[in-house]
């Protein structure tokens, strides 16, 4: 890491931030800008790519390279950029509608390819920019403008989805917990390959208080599970709850007391992290945050770069082109 003497201020663009006052996005922006200098990467080598939605305005506010693209396609655009420019640090900023509805296909394929992207999914469980329709992470029965009788759609669990695509880095954090948010960003940035970070983000206009249960000091301790690599997974005001592996059963469950599992982000089989992801439901009753999974496998970028490198030939490109054009059954007319 190079000390470039950058500060958070260096990552603020000259654009006026136009989110609603009180939006959780402000906290995330400040956390990202505050954390960026730690990367030791010159600003010109950092690119933020986004899709459409409130969160996708993010690149305009970062004094790096940035592209505000079209709905759902940021992972595809960022894949082309990252694969052709492995020297860059490419970040995707997206929301629950952008990433999981219209862009669901691109998200899972970026993750399965393990493109070297840091994907920040701001999950507020609502469509904000289109003014308040339910999203693919809204709870079943959600009453919104487009579902006055309650939505009939079951929500995605974004982490389960990412793990199903065999994402190599999967984490969750919360907009209001700056320290935790930055520690997760740090781990994501350190990861080689796709890093998928779900950030619970409050939309104070259309879905205010969606995450209050795990934010409010009076309730959070009994519902929020802080995952720490190498530590037993326990929680509760008196640390009375344990996440255990039930004998003879699949997956994990929460119980009072008992022998808690010890969290290990390096478990190769995604089934472990998947089981952790299933602890959280729409009701947020037991919600793990932190890094679920952090494993290594070859990245798309390096595999592509290797193929190009292996094929690289010395010699004049013009001559190689002439050779290629002539590499067939040819005949000559005098």
């Amino acid at each position, binding site marked *: 890491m190079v000390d470039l003497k950058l500060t958070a201020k260096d990552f603020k*663009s000259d*654009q006026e931030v136009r989110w609603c006052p009180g939006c959780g996005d402000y906290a995330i922006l400040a956390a990202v800008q505050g954390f960026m200098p730690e990367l030791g990467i*010159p*600003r*010109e*080598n950092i*690119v933020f*790519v986004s899709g*459409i939605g409130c969160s996708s305005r993010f*690149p*305009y506010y*970062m*004094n*790096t*390279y*940035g*592209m*505000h*693209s*079209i709905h759902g*396609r940021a992972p*595809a*655009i*960022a*894949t*082309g*950029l*990252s*694969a*052709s*420019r492995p*020297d*860059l640090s490419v970040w995707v900023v997206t929301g629950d509608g952008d990433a999981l509805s219209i862009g669901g*296909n*691109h998200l899972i*394929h970026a993750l399965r390819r393990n493109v070297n992207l840091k994907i920040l999914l701001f999950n507020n469980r609502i469509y904000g920019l289109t003014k308040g329709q339910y999203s693919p992470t809204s709870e079943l029965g959600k009453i919104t403008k487009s579902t006055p009788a309650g939505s009939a759609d079951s929500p995605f669990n974004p982490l389960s989805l990412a793990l199903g695509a065999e994402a190599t880095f999967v984490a969750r954090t919360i907009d209001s917990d700056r320290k935790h948010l930055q520690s997760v960003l740090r781990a994501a940035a350190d990861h080689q390959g796709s890093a998928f970070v779900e950030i619970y983000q409050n939309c104070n206009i259309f879905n205010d208080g969606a995450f209050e249960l795990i934010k409010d000091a009076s309730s959070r301790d009994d519902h929020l599970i802080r995952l720490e690599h190498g530590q037993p997974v326990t929680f509760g005001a008196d640390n009375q709850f344990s996440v255990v592996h039930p004998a003879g059963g699949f997956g994990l469950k929460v119980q009072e007391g008992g022998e808690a599992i010890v969290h290990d982000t390096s478990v190769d089989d995604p089934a472990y992290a998947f089981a952790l992801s299933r602890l959280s439901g729409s009701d947020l009753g037991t919600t793990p945050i932190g890094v679920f999974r952090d494993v290594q496998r070859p990245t798309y970028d390096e595999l*592509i770069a290797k*193929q*190009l490198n*292996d*094929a*690289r*030939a010395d010699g004049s*490109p*013009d*001559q*190689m*082109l*002439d050779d*290629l*054009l*002539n590499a*067939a*059954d*040819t*005949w*000559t*007319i*005098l």
Partner: protein
Amino acid sequence: MSAGAKRVEQLDRVVIRFAGDSGDGMQLTGDRFTSETAQLGNDISTLPNFPAEIRAPAGTLPGVSSFQVHFADYDILTPGDAPNVLVAMNPAALKANLADLPAGADIIVNTDEFTKRSLAKVGWATSPLEDGSLGEFAVHPVALTSMTVGALADHGISKKDAERAKNMFALGLLSWMYSRPFESTIRFLERKFAKRPELVAANKAAFQAGWNFGETTEDFAVRYEVKPAKMRPGTYRNITGNQALALGLVAAAVRSKLPLFLGAYPITPASDILHELSKHKKFGITTMQAEDEIAAIGAALGASYGGALGVTTTSGPGVALKGETISLAIALELPLVVVDVQRAGPSTGMPTKTEQADLNMALFGRHGEAPLAVIAPKSPSDCFHAAIEAARIALTYRTPVILLSDNYVANGSEPWLLPSSSELPDLSVEFATAPNGEDGRFLPYLRDPETLARPWAIPGTPGLEHRIGGLEKADKTGDISYDPANHEFMVRTRAARIEAIDVPDVEVEDADEAARVLVLGWGSTYGPIGAACRALRQRGLPIAQAHLRHLSPLPANLGEVLRAYDKVVVPEMNLGQLAQVIRARYLVDVLPFNQVSGLPFTAATLENMLEDVVKNG
């Protein structure tokens, strides 16, 4: 293989159609015959015609696959209207192609396949070989399968493998009939079956048996020669449009000194471009088979943003899916080449049949005012130069360019006079490296006064950090802007930028300069229109031909050209899409002539139509 003692007759041109079941290897047979013919120096044009089904039920009409090759001792423009010779490997192949044959044509049939069951599959109660219904043709019955199996009896291969070699028997026979040099086919067999020497030997033997059969049987009393064509001096190869297009993209990468990034999703008839480009990594070419058409163009655009030549290749349905990203590329003002190998639509349509019906989509198929450049190649080998031209426009003017190929030129082939790399245009680009604003700021939308192109400032360049996006941008700064006057200015500027693209004037071929009728075409119809015009001129009927390569912007002299004639005819393989543009833009009441059969125009169809216009106005 000796030259034999039979009478040799000289011909100036021949059209042969090989037809059989999808599994009979007719494309390969035609391809080999073409290659042999190319070696001889004839001019050639080919037309493959195959079903979209990989293997339709054997022996049925939908399963018939054919390959037509036209070769001559002078320069030709089309694969020929009607075959002089049909090779029919089964009753379905005979039935499917019979209507195209002129009286007197030679038909070589594989009699082994004319069983009651095979005849019944195509609805024939009696065999046309026996019921006299082929009286107007010269029928040559040949027991192709059994003679091949017989010739290979000692080769120690399965009966199935022996039967499969019957296409080489047919090729040997036709190669004898038309005095083709066979060395390239022998080399080809040695390459193709390198891992199975027994099949090399068997296929060579089958080819030899076919050749010998021609020489010995009394049914073939004459063999033919077609002398080499007088062509421009130089080195030639035979090439299909898709191959030429892929090589043109390689050339564009070399001549621009940029890495090329192809994002593509498999689709007929464009996939061969992806296959070809994926072989050329040593030119710094990355090919990505994306999860869908949208990701394919998205990745290409992302690569362009990073400083690569971004390309996506597809067919009509894919272009429909890519529309929103093309609009983004227009707003971002980044280079991007979008190749549309058109096929018959709408929807899935006829994926292996040709059409020119995506012109409207290319010109207008986006939301908002979203102009871009559109060009179309006129022949298989022209796809090479069209690809370079598309890259030139994209890189110079920072715009998406749609290249409208189609199935006819993509899969058809012709001899190609090989260019040398050094004579191809220099496509070098300059990335922005320093702030361009008076106050030391970087203004991503400050335009070059001549091209109206904005700077291409790629990530990694210190001091030029900036944000771009699909929201309307303020002039010069690129900041988000909802200002009414700014939007009006930006919309008009984006349009002016496309209109200002430097494209060559359209040329008019008017041999006698006496023509009162102009025929205006675009893209792949060049061959049949040109052949029809030649035929008319030979008959003393003057006609002028102009052909458009640039559809957007149109050449500056086009209005003047159109107004110089009493009548302008516009033949298209659609329902009049260019005709509508011409009428709207130039107020010239052109006469559309349209065909949407999935097949290219025949020269005769156009000749008849144009004759009527020339004579009767």
